[in-house]
C-alpha cells in the first residue's frame, strides 16, 4: 500500500504511477462541486463554446461544500464527498474536454469514464464518505465560488487544500477500476455464496 503526496495540478507522469489501492494526499488548487445542475451547465457551456467561469486545472472532485460569504471573505463550514456515479453520463466528456488528471468523490465511475481517464491520464480518488471532520480540516482557503444561483453544495468552487487525504486510488490511469473488479468478483462469487447459505440453512433446520 504505497502512499503518495501529489501537488495539484499534477504532472501526467505522477498520475501514471498511481496504482489501485494506493493512498494519496493532495495539496494545491482543486475545483469541486456536488451538483447535477453544475454538471449540466458545464456540458452546456462546453457545447456552446461559452468560457467556464474558472480555470479547472486538472483536478475536479465531487465534493459538496457549505461555504458562506462573510464581510471577511468566504467561510468554509464543511465538505464531504458525494456519489460520483450520479454524474456518470457527464464525466467522460468533462474528463476529455478539460484534460483532467484527478477526479474523485465516492463510489467510483462507470466504464465510459474509465476509458476517458485512460485517454487523458487521469485517476479516480475515493474520499471518505462521513469524513467531513477530517476532510474539512484540509481546506485552507476558498479561492472562488461561481454559479451562485445554485445552493452552496451545487456551486462550482475553487479551493486551496493542504494534505487532503488519505484518499484511495479507486481507478488508475491505465483502465483498472477497483469498482469494476469488485462488482465482477462479487457476481462470480455469488453462486458459491448462495450455496454456502443453502448449507447453513440445512444445518440450522437439522439442529432444530
Amino acid at each position, binding site marked *: *500500500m504505497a502512499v503518495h503526496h501529489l501537488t495539484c495540478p499534477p504532472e501526467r507522469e505522477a498520475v501514471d504511477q498511481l496504482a489501485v*489501492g494506493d*493512498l494519496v494526499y493532495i495539496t494545491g488548487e482543486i475545483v469541486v462541486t*456536488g451538483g447535477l445542475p453544475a454538471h449540466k451547465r458545464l456540458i452546456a457551456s462546453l457545447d456552446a463554446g461559452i468560457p467556464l467561469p474558472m480555470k479547472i486545472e486538472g483536478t475536479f472532485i465531487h465534493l*459538496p*461544500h*457549505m461555504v*458562506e460569504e462573510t464581510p471577511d471573505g468566504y467561510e468554509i*463550514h*464543511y*465538505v*464531504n464527498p*458525494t*456519489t460520483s*456515479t450520479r454524474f456518470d453520463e457527464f464525466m467522460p466528456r468533462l474528463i476529455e474536454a478539460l484534460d483532467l488528471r484527478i477526479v474523485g468523490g*465516492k*463510489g*467510483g465511475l462507470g466504464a465510459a469514464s474509465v476509458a476517458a481517464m485512460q485517454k487523458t491520464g487521469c485517476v479516480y480518488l*475515493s474520499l*471518505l*464518505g*462521513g*469524513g*467531513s*471532520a*477530517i476532510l*474539512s*480540516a484540509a481546506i485552507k482557503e476558498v479561492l472562488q465560488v461561481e454559479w451562485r444561483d445554485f*445552493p*452552496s*453544495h451545487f456551486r462550482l468552487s475553487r479551493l486551496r487544500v493542504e494534505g487532503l487525504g*488519505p484518499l*484511495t486510488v*479507486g481507478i488508475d490511469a491505465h483502465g483498472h477500476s*477497483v*469498482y469494476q473488479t*469488485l*462488482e465482477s*468478483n*462479487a*457476481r462470480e*462469487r*455469488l453462486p458459491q*455464496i*448462495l450455496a*454456502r*447459505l*443453502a448449507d*447453513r*440453512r440445512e444445518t*440450522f433446520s437439522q439442529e*432444530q
Partner: protein
Amino acid sequence: MIDEALIQEVTEDLYSAALRRVPPDTIRALEKARHQEEHESARATLDLMLRSAQLAEENDKFVCSDSGVPVYLVEIGARARWQGDIKQAITRGFAHLVETITPPLLKHVNNPLTNERGFAGKDMPSISVDLIGDADYIDITCVPKALGSGRWASIKTFISPSLEDIEAFIMEAIIEAGSQHCPPVIVGVGIGGNFDLTAKLANRATYREVGSVNPEPILAAMEERLTEAANATGFGPMGVGGSTSVLGVHIDYAFGHGYTPVAVCFNCWINRRAKARLYNDGRVERIF
C-alpha cells in the same frame, strides 16, 4: 407533562445530535470489524472512519455534509399522556433547527415534481407512529436519511417464497448497492406484511442495536449467515475492497398471505440515529 414544547425541543435536539455523532453501538461494531478485517487498506479505511467519528464528536462537527431528510418514528405507550399536536411539534422542531443550527444545513430537500430545493417539503417530516402497549412514555427516534441510507433500498413482492428465494433477493440488493452506499452498512430486511408495512419493518430493523441478537432463533440464524454472505462479496469499507461490507443484517417479519413482499434497505456506516424516551412526568431519557 409531555407537551408540545417538550416534543419540539427533544426532536430538534435529536436531529442535531444525530448529525454530529456516530452512535456508540456502531462505534463498537466498527472497532470489532477493524480487528477482524483481513485487508490492510480496508483496515486503514476503518481507522479513518473511527477517527472521523471521534473528531466530529470532540469538535461538535457534522460527520457528513448531507443532513438528509428528517424521518421520525414515534412510539406511543398505552399509558402515555400528552398535550398538544405531536406532528406540529416535530415540524416546528425541525423548522427551528434549520433556522438556528450551527454550522448551517445545506438545502437537501427537494420537490420531486419540480426539483426546487429548500429545507421543507410536502408531508415533511416523515413521521411514522406505532402503538407499543403498556408503557407510560413516548419513544421518539430521529433518523436523518440521505443517499447512503435511502437510495439503494429495494422491494419485491413474491408468491409464497422459500427462505432460499428471500435470501437470494437480499444478496442481489446487496450486490446492486455494491460500493455506492458508504459501506460497511447496516442491512435492514422486512418480510411479509402488506407493502408499506414490509418497508417499515425493514427500515426499523436498521434502527436496532448493532450487535444485538434477534430474539427469534430462525431470524438470528438467518442474520448470522447473511452477514457472512454479505461480507464474502468483498466490497469492503467505502467499496474499495475488503472483508467488511456490512456491520450487521437485521431482519424482521410480520403476518403473511399468499403474497409476501420483501424489503431491503441500508444505513451507511455512520448509521446516524438518535432516540429519546419522554415520560409522563416530563423526564427525558436518551436511549442512544
